[in-house]
């Protein structure tokens, strides 16, 4: 009897997800984007709801994280169901997906290491997965970011950042991904903007890392550059300075690329923005965050012809982090739009603002 009841309960339909007709994004700024976090989102309707809200906000671009270790738990056995689901819904909403791939499965790293630890012996395993991903989503995912912030020790498995090793990983991945799908655009990883002093055990200055990546021959192994552009406490128009971290530090990255003959390669802001936590020292007030974010989107649209997309961190988390991280988001875990969401939507659609008293871009 009990088994019958449990079986019945299990068989009850979950919240119905209807795809409906495909959508397109209506926006006044085609570079507008957000980094979504759907990786740990369990229910399909929430994935759909998140992506629908991105579209309604007027953002044609999303960056999404696809953890290799989630999908290939044993070598060669890849379960594509989750990425299939996310990409199908994103495409249905008319969104362009930039896929960031990292997270080392347990079988590809020594015991007692973190999921960011990838040694040379397993570079080919990672590259194989990226190639399989590129082949599977041909025509659906145009851009893939190889790894994340390799200039930070914790993103490199708590080892000293190693630009030469990253160049090897990038080149191998580039070659194998292109063999699998010649159309895919491979992006070099966005570096964490950091001013870490030389020899720091925690990280390496992003500009130094990038220079060493070029010196190691990495420049031939990517089609575009992912950039992380955080504004911290500075307004978006603050001029770039190698000794400061601000939104326009992205221009220094592009200048460095140009010095190495890569000035024509497109850049993509795959993380960025401002935080409005009440006490974090690197945060601004919520109203400033709204204004700065809108002005940053507008700055990229007007001033950065080398930049294809600006995906701010982060659209929504599946659950609260209960830390300053929650103050990067546009929408709460319960799908309540924050004022920043409301105002960015108004900006994208050229509508009057609801909370701001004047137009931060000065356009209308």
């Amino acid at each position: 009897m009990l088994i019958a009841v449990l079986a019945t309960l299990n068989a009850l339909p979950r919240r119905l997800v209807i795809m409906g007709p495909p959508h397109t994004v209506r926006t006044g700024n085609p570079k507008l984007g957000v980094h979504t976090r759907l990786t740990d989102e369990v229910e399909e309707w929430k994935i759909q709801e998140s992506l629908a809200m991105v579209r309604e906000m007027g953002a044609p671009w999303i960056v999404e994280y696809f953890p290799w270790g989630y999908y290939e738990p044993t070598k060669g056995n890849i379960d594509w169901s989750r990425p299939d689901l996310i990409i199908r819904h994103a495409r249905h909403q008319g969104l362009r997906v930039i896929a960031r791939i990292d997270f080392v499965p347990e079988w590809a790293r020594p015991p007692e290491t973190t999921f960011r630890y990838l040694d040379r012996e397993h570079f080919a395993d990672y590259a194989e997965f990226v190639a399989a991903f590129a082949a599977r989503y041909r025509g659906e995912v145009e851009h893939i970011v190889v790894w994340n912030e390799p200039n930070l020790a914790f993103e490199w498995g708590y080892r000293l950042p190693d630009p030469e090793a990253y160049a090897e990983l990038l080149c191998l991945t580039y070659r194998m991904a292109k063999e699998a799908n010649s159309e895919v655009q491979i992006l070099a990883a966005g570096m964490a903007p950091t001013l870490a002093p030389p020899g720091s055990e925690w990280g390496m200055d992003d500009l130094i890392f990038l220079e060493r990546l070029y010196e190691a021959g990495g420049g031939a192994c990517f089609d575009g550059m992912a950039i992380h552009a955080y504004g911290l406490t500075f307004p978006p128009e603050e001029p770039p300075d190698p000794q400061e971290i601000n939104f326009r530090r992205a221009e220094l990255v592009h200048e460095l690329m140009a010095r190495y003959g890569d000035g024509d390669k497109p850049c993509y802001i795959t993380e960025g923005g401002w935080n409005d936590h009440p006490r974090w020292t690197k945060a601004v007030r919520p109203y400033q965050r709204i204004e700065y974010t809108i002005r940053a989107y507008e700055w990229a649209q007007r001033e950065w012809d080398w930049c294809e997309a600006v995906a701010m961190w982060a659209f929504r988390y599946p659950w609260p982090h209960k830390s300053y991280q929650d103050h990067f988001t546009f929408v709460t875990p319960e799908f309540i739009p924050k004022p920043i969401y409301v105002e960015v939507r108004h900006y994208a659609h050229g509508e009057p603002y609801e909370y701001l008293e004047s137009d931060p871009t000065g356009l209308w």
Partner: protein
Amino acid sequence: MPTASPTSTWRAIRRASGERKIARWLALALAALLLVLVLLWQGEYWADLWQRDVAWERIQRDGLLRVGMDASYPPFEVVTDDGEFFGLDVDLARALGERWGVEVVMVNVHFDGLYDALRTNKFDLIISALPYDRTMTRDLRYSQSYFDAGQVLLMSADRADVEDIRDLRGESDAPISIAVELGAEGHHLARKLYRDQGLPLEVLPQREMDEAVALLRSGEADGLICDRVTAYELLREHGDLRIAGPPLTSEPLVIAALIDAPTLMEQVNAALNEWRADGTLEALRARWF
């Protein structure tokens, strides 16, 4: 009246004896099952008893407690350009070191990396205004809370009658006007109370907290919602305000250690218990807020 034959009596005795045996076996099996269940239920206790706490042993052996924090979060933890740490959490860490007779060293790590750094043995404890996270309890041990940073209702000190946001309405039909900082947690909570609980709120979002406070102090707003840390700061500046009633939300801040450090966490909790009882924690709060 029929009389039992010797054979049937013998059968009856054997049957009774067999039933007793079965009953005895059943009782034994039941006791064993109960024991197994108790052991499973109290598994963590037994595991703790048999487990060596390497972190605690190392702290004792080396005379050094390593504490991880993201020192960018006043008044809990900040670091100067000269590398000097200060704040409530720093005091807490030093007090633990003093209690255990060991030196304390702070390790400054970006908040995102705190858990990974703990896992890779960069330090023994995280003391960093860390919110309790129920999704991490398989890998970590959390202490009791030493501070609740949830949202509170702030209001004029002369409204002594108010202990709940609903009390603000009084006899009037007018909505309760609540000042909040635009886009802050208090703003989201006020919208949620209005939307989900049907409270008749008129939410007054202001660009700066100072503007929200001005509305409250001038009587244009009945109350103000903000987090407890901000509330303490405002109370220091404005003696005519008070926190009304219990917190509207709870956000316990805790200390974290690895799951295989039961003794270390036991020692942390013993200290917190004692300090809560003797007023040390309250004094610490008063020092920084």
